[in-house]
């Protein structure tokens, strides 16, 4: 049994109205533990709805969301404590900051958990450190920080609850390349240190390819596949049918294969591509 599972989950918006729309259709998956899982899909494929069902913000129209084998929607009263175990960071989370100081804002979640003051303070520090911020920001107002710093504070606010599963919707949206890499790296470090599971929604195939152990692909609300990057990007033609582009190196290697150069199908990082192409190049010499 896996910690977090979806069992035939469907979600319909505006049921019974003229605007009725099925956002998620009969999805079953059991998420790997202590892994980074990427969720990809075209806009409107149901990614956001899916992740909001995982922490009980949305209740499936049918099917069950299981956490430690128990249906999270069985008892409504338990949902609040579930959200401390399944943390969710929304897109552009810096827009939800509200406290006078960074310390209070990051401590909002732990405070809601009813933890003692010392424990809250310790967690706030740990979380802020994981996001690469200097502890001197703690007494500052979150509103006077730069955009990238605000983003980190907002993520720290969820890390401080020390969830067992951390879900992030586009955590790096709008950041520059170095900012993106740093934030994703920090989340990865946090995951390893806490033995947690991270589920990350992203539009960037390059980042998903570089950071994820497992990938879940949604197409129009249906689960296309849940598998390793090799399995997913090994069939990159299928992805393009769903309006998803494989990483640029994968597309480049596909073009090379079309030109008759023998390369494996499942290349998805620059390192792999470099190794394979160099081998093909040197191999030509060796044959001769």
């Amino acid at each position, binding site marked *: 049994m896996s910690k977090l599972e979806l069992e035939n989950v469907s979600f319909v918006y505006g049921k019974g109205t003229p605007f009725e729309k099925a956002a998620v259709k009969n999805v079953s998956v059991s998420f790997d533990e202590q892994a980074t899982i990427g969720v990809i899909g*075209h*806009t409107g494929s149901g990614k956001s709805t899916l992740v909001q069902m995982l922490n009980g913000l949305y209740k499936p129209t049918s099917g069950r969301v299981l956490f430690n084998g128990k249906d999270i929607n069985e008892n409504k009263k338990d949902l609040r404590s579930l959200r401390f175990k399944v943390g969710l960071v929304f897109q552009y989370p810096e827009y939800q900051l509200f406290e006078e100081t960074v310390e209070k804002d990051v401590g909002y979640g732990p405070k809601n958990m009813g933890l003692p003051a010392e424990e809250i303070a310790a967690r706030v520090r740990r979380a802020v450190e994981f996001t690469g911020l200097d502890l001197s920001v703690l007494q500052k107002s979150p509103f006077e920080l*730069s955009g990238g710093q605000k983003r980190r504070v907002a993520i720290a606010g969820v890390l401080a609850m020390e969830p067992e599963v951390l879900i992030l919707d586009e955590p790096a949206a709008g950041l520059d390349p*170095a*900012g993106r890499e740093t934030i994703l790296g920090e989340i990865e470090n946090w995951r390893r240190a806490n033995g947690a599971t991270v589920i990350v929604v992203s539009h960037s195939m390059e980042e998903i390819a570089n950071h994820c152990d497992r990938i879940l692909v949604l197409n129009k609300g249906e689960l296309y596949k849940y598998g390793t990057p090799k399995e997913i990007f090994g069939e990159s033609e299928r992805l393009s049918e769903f309006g998803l582009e494989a990483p640029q190196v994968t597309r480049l290697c596909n073009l090379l294969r079309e030109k008759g150069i023998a390369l494996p199908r499942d290349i998805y990082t620059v390192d792999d591509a470099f190794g394979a192409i160099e081998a093909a190049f040197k191999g030509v010499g060796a044959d*001769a």
Partner: protein
Amino acid sequence: MAETFIRTEGLCFSYKDDEGRPILHNINIDIKRGEFLCILGRNGSGKSTFAKLLNMILTPDAGKIYVDGVDITDPGLTEEQIMEVRRKVGMVFQNPDNQLVATIVEEDVAFGPENMGVPSDEIRERVDRALETVGMTEYARHSPSRLSGGQKQRIAIAGILAMMPECIIFDESTAMLDPHGRHEVMETIDRLNEMRSLTVIAITHNMDEAILADRIAVMDGGRIVMDGSPAEIFSREEELTAMGLGVPQAAMLANRLRRAGMDLPEGLLDERSAADAIASAINARKRQGT
């Protein structure tokens, strides 16, 4: 050589409430009419501040800016002259939600010409034409709130086009869009630049957008630190990485293969040109070998 459309001389700027730390140092740049210039830099490099100076949203501390020969830093500029500068240099912003004024698409597109006092019949024509150019004619009577991010940005572009600009500045206009929306907007920008010989200044930190430009100016710490064609700029991978920028994966791979001894030309920025070059390098070796 095309004529200069925008020229800055010794441009400096610092925010007043900051500790006097300059945001822009001594920016000197010539932007030609019809050019597609990309200003590339990481967050906080000063690139957006630069854009806001060109459009008179901010006033520089020192230096001059000429737009089509007019010194827009001149404090004696009349209201009409200011309006004329804003008409000539339109701006599309980052957040698609925060720049549309009206509750109906075509009313929003009409907003600029209405402010300029264009006669009603002509506004109608301009609005129809602008919507057609961005491919949003069928949404003319829709409410913007139900459109996708990419569609909203195309409406914002149409709103600027209806003012008959000579230059459009895109201030990170694709940063909040998904890949599909980004593609929609980039394709529109590229088409406008080619079809209408509109001067385009795209401010971004996205490499895939930068490769479409004729010329890239890289900003770092409030200065222009590199200025050249995409091929030139992206061959300097290490410097870019050190500045917190990156290069497209195709360029990264090509640069590594070149260092490993493969004979590849400079300027391989997209997967197609890179694949062609790599394939011919491998095939050339094959022919040599046999």
